[in-house]
């Protein structure tokens, strides 16, 4: 009951999902669409579980006054203000003034800045790779550098660099990406079969 039933559910649902792909029947298509909706709904409940967990962890931090507990107050305050603002305009409407402005003037600036910080860390990583002085690191850096400077006006060098960048993108890069995509595809299919047949059971957790 605890382990066998979930394994049976996985097998039956997986088998249905495979069969419906090859059998063009309207009734199967309808069930398939419903199953996709079901998955999305269950996924949302799982995400809500994550949000609940976030609140609980931060609440516990404040309650126990553990290290840096003051920051947990900021997290919870931000969360509750945003949530209340989102539900204030009425059911199904997100045009609340506070909700929109917190998104534009708090969420977007911090997230965009955090991502832009990566430019500095990536530059430092490139420098360390350059110091490694291996053929592979050099190839990676030359390829990266050509892609980066291809739009920079460099006089008579601009055209050959642009041509070289085009060649890199459409020949070796294409080959590399295809190898990765095909590899990922084969890996995903193998993993899906392992899950379907009950060989991979990590999702069940421990008893």
């Amino acid at each position: 009951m605890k382990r066998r039933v979930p394994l049976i559910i996985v097998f039956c649902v997986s088998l249905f999902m495979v069969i419906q792909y090859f059998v063009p029947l309207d009734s199967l298509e309808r069930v398939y669409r419903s199953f996709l909706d079901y998955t999305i709904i269950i996924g949302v409940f799982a995400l809500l579980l994550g949000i609940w967990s976030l609140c609980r962890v931060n609440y516990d931090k404040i309650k126990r006054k553990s290290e840096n507990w003051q920051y947990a107050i900021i997290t919870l305050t931000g969360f509750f203000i945003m949530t209340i603002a989102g539900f204030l305009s009425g059911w199904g409407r997100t045009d609340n003034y506070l909700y929109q402005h917190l998104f534009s003037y708090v969420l977007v600036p911090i997230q965009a800045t955090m991502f832009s910080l990566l430019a500095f860390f990536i530059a430092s990583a490139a420098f360390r790779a350059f110091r490694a002085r291996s053929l592979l690191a050099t190839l990676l850096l030359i390829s990266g550098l050509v892609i980066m400077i291809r739009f920079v006006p460099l006089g008579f060098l601009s055209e050959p660099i642009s041509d070289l960048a085009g060649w890199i993108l459409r020949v070796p890069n294409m080959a590399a990406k295809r190898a990765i995509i095909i590899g990922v595809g084969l890996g995903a299919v193998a993993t899906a079969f392992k899950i379907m047949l009950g060989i991979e059971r990590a999702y069940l957790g421990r008893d």
Partner: protein
Amino acid sequence: MHETIQDSATVTLLWTTLGALLTVATFSFLYRDNPIYKVAEHLVVGVGAGYFLVLLVYTTLKPKLFDALAEGHLWYIIPGVLGVLMWLRFSRKLSWISRYSIAFYIGTSGVSIPLYMYNNVNRQVSSTLDLGMGFGSLTEVWGILIVLGTLAGLVYFFFSKAHKGAFGGFAKFGILVLMIGFGASFGYTVMARISLFVQRIAELEDWGAMLIAYFFS
């Protein structure tokens, strides 16, 4: 009328100032991890969670579950129940029931078997073998190079046979091709992040101009 515009400009300036200060607070991490950065970091986690909670409820739960049930599609109670069962993970005695929901969720990934096989394998292989899809005047030559590079890349990821002899040499060619590909992705990522950085600096510049215009014009 004048006062309304003045109020609006003040409020806009206050919001923009908040955004600018949070940008500076986040940039302060470049110096080192500090309390100002931590405030911005924790704020974005909380506000982000709240934002996505509202978005998930309105864009997914409302149309797909509540509206469907209100329209009489009662079988939609099944995912609702399965979703609620997920919450039993918090119970020590009943947490095993949540496996039913997870099992259904995992089971639907069975569709990835035909989909991945078609999109990631069949279509990529057929495009790779189309030698006319190369580049420039030496189309066929580059087409053959793409075929060899793709094969070599796959050989590099094949660990069931030792990378020795001709097989090992081909795998080495594969890693060279992969490194050029990673370099291209690296270049693109750096450019994207620098664009974001330039955009953040431009926002700060706009904020400075707004402050000057507000106080001195």
